[in-house]
């Protein structure tokens, strides 16, 4: 039955295929270092630029070239795009999009402001953030908060088509960017805190017609898993790989949304992404019929799907039966590195759960899974012995299991906190050092799950938590680290006062850029993290640093505008459990450092 469905899905895909391949254009355009056409730089998500005019010797001389106010106060995630002489700047809800003329210091060429029902605002769990549009083939693909996907003429801002991907009344919203691949645009969905059943959908890039949709959980023909051909840890997943890991119909409100990033490998024609937490946050309500943990596939998983058909080639679940809200949505970075003496085509992923994973991106084989924050304590590690029945599974430490501690009981001192050792803020990879540069959170939590009931379009959480800076460390809430993904080791680590919630950029100038929540844009040496430059922008940075070149001059740009989960969790400062009852210890409140306001800062050498 499901076989038939899979076959017809691929037939449909073939019928829609056209010779004009958007990814040819994306490949060509993203190969030009003077541009930035996808949010993550290019299909590999490496966030690396070959531009080298700004380098480790002269970066200290950077000055502001020009700035631009977005007119919106909420948290600004993502980055501007640059295509030719035009820069595209997006905002959080109402998702305004500006096209700025680089030949005239950012004069506004056109502005697109969608009309959206404000009812979508409160169903976005943690601020109305948006990680930005993408460019392909003369078109800007813009995915609004209310899940309307619109294709705009890149030159004029005129609508070519639009389509609605989800229903905000059920808590379905969008915060993610999109990925144009071939003749399709791949989009995700947010709302696991509202019991949304997650999915990824491909739309025809010329018409907006839906080509395929793959749910994260449910029957095989809806998750587009082939029981015999879709692999996990070297074995076929088998029949009902998702359904048999849920009790009753909980999967219908089971979360596993796809609100992170997509990457694409043209050799294998695979699209990679991660899935979010199972709903609710109370694991007892998701236990198996026997009262024991049950996996809840394919939440918390890395999934590799064929771009044309959506059928999964492989999947790997990082945190089976989540008990801490460790969404698996963070970016998948594709790189070719040497692991144990062998050149490998890998996928590297820094998960919320605090483990840095290196997998073979062709087969899904697990190569490395190590902690990228030494304070991570919920697991003793992942079993790497292929002959063990526990192969590939993280071993949960009883003391930090919110399920074993139980409903209505407080599990103390779990590291990392629900916001993860790293959230969506993307890391960068430099082929010159073979290191990954990772913005991280250094925050732990107490977590108490309890019973909740489901109402469509209402929060469906079921746990209370308090967060604090990792105890017994430097007292700060973040680190910016360099990671060796072949060894699974931290190369260097630079402490930060607040969580680092900004995407990194590595360049051929031997430097790495990132932003801080106080609002600094910083440049550090790729070799050892030495700080070479910092400048305080108008507001806290949760956006991602990008670079481009115009008329032969290199520029570095970043959106500031504090908000997002970081702005919510850290505005008032965290409590220090060691200082006794609720004292606010020495930990800084973000609101003492920065205030709301979206603006773009563009830097260059004098």
């Amino acid at each position: 039955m499901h076989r038939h469905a899979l076959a017809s899905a691929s037939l449909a895909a073939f019928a829609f295929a056209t010779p004009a391949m958007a990814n040819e254009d994306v490949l060509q355009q993203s190969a030009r270092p003077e541009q930035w056409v996808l949010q993550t730089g290019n299909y590999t998500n490496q966030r690396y630029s070959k531009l080298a005019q700004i380098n480790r010797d002269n970066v200290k001389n950077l000055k502001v070239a020009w700035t631009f106010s977005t007119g919106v106060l909420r948290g600004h995630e993502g980055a501007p795009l640059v295509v030719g002489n035009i820069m595209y700047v997006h905002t959080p809800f109402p998702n305004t999009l500006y096209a700025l003329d680089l030949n005239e210091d950012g004069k506004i060429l056109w502005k697109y402001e969608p009309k959206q029902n404000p009812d979508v605002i409160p169903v976005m769990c943690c601020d109305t953030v948006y990680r930005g549009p993408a460019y392909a083939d003369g078109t800007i693909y813009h995915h609004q908060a209310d899940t309307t996907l619109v294709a705009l003429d890149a030159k004029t801002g005129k609508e070519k088509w639009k389509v609605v991907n989800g229903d905000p009344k059920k808590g379905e919203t969008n915060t993610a960017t999109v990925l144009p691949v071939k003749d399709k645009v791949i989009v995700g969905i947010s709302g696991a805190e509202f019991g949304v059943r997650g999915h990824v959908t491909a739309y025809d890039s010329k018409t907006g017609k839906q080509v395929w949709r793959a749910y994260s959980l449910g029957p095989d023909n809806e998750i587009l898993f082939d029981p015999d051909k879709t692999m996990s840890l070297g074995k076929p997943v088998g029949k009902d790989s998702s359904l048999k890991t849920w009790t009753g119909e909980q999967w219908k409100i089971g979360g596993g949304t796809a609100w992170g990033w997509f990457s694409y490998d043209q050799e294998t024609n695979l699209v990679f992404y991660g899935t979010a937490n199972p709903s609710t946050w109370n694991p007892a309500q998701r236990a198996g019929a026997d009262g024991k943990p049950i996996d809840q596939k394919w939440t918390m998983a890395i999934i590799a799907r064929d771009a044309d058909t959506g059928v999964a080639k492989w999947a790997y679940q990082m945190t089976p039966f989540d008990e801490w809200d460790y969404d698996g949505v963070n970016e998948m970075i594709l790189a070719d590195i040497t692991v144990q003496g062998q050149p490998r085509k890998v996928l590297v992923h820094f998960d919320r759960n605090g483990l840095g994973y290196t997998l073979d991106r062709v087969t899904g084989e697990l190569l490395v899974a190590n902690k990228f924050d030494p304070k991570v304590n919920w697991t003793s590690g992942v079993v790497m012995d292929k002959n063990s029945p526990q192969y590939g599974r993280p071993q949960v430490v009883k003391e930090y299991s919110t399920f074993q501690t139980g409903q209505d009981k407080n599990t103390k001192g779990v590291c990392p906190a629900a916001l993860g050792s790293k959230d969506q803020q993307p890391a960068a990879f430099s082929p010159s050092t073979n290191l990954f540069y990772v913005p991280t959170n250094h925050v732990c939590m107490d977590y108490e799950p309890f019973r909740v009931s489901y109402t469509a379009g209402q929060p469906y959480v079921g746990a209370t938590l308090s967060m604090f800076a990792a105890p017994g460390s430097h007292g700060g809430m973040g680190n910016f680290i360099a990671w060796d993904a072949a060894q699974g080791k931290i190369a260097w680590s630079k402490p930060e006062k607040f969580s680092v919630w900004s995407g990194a950029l590595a360049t051929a100038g031997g430097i790495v850029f990132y932003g801080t929540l106080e609002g600094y844009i910083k440049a550090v040496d790729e070799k050892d993290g030495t700080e070479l430059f910092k400048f305080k922008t108008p507001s806290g940075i949760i956006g991602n640093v990008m670079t481009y070149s115009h008329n032969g001059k290199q520029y570095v740009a970043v959106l500031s505008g504090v908000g997002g989960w970081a702005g919510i969790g850290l505005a008032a400062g965290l409590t220090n459990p060691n200082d006794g009852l609720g004292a606010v210890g020495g930990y800084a409140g973000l609101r003492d450092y920065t205030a709301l306001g979206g603006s773009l800062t563009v830097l260059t050498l004098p």
Partner: protein
Amino acid sequence: MKRAGFASAMVGAIVLLSSPYAMAETANTTEKKEIAGKWVTAAGDPTYNIASDGTVDWYTFSGFRRYHSECHTCHGPDGEGSSYAPGLVESVKTMRYADFMLIVATGREVVRADKQSKMPALGDNANVRCYLEDIYVYLKARADGGLPRGRPAKRADKPEAAEKQEKECFGDR
């Protein structure tokens, strides 16, 4: 249009909660009495109690839990506010229970030149509706400065009345 919606939702909320507090005329948080583990001001608003050894009443503790499940993702930890939504510790200093209940049940929209914010109507959400008093007294305890930030260290046991009310409110438990 909006007012009509509000009014009917308000009636719904009040009927739903059948609260004795909606009729209260004046606020007075200094005098209070206990009825089956639940504390009430002389003016008839629900309130918190913190014993001399720091033990909080059940409802204040319950409010702490529910707040940090349903409310803190917008309003920040401990009612302190966030970059996204205002601090409720400030708001409830002057807000009577009836007004609090109304806003939570029916929502609130603020449209200004510089921002548009929208609080959802949570009256349909059993996880909020069944604990409205709890959340209010928790925030009151925080607002008056009696309860510091973080998890209350000690709490009273759950009264039978709370158990019973919870079951009735959820309908299925």
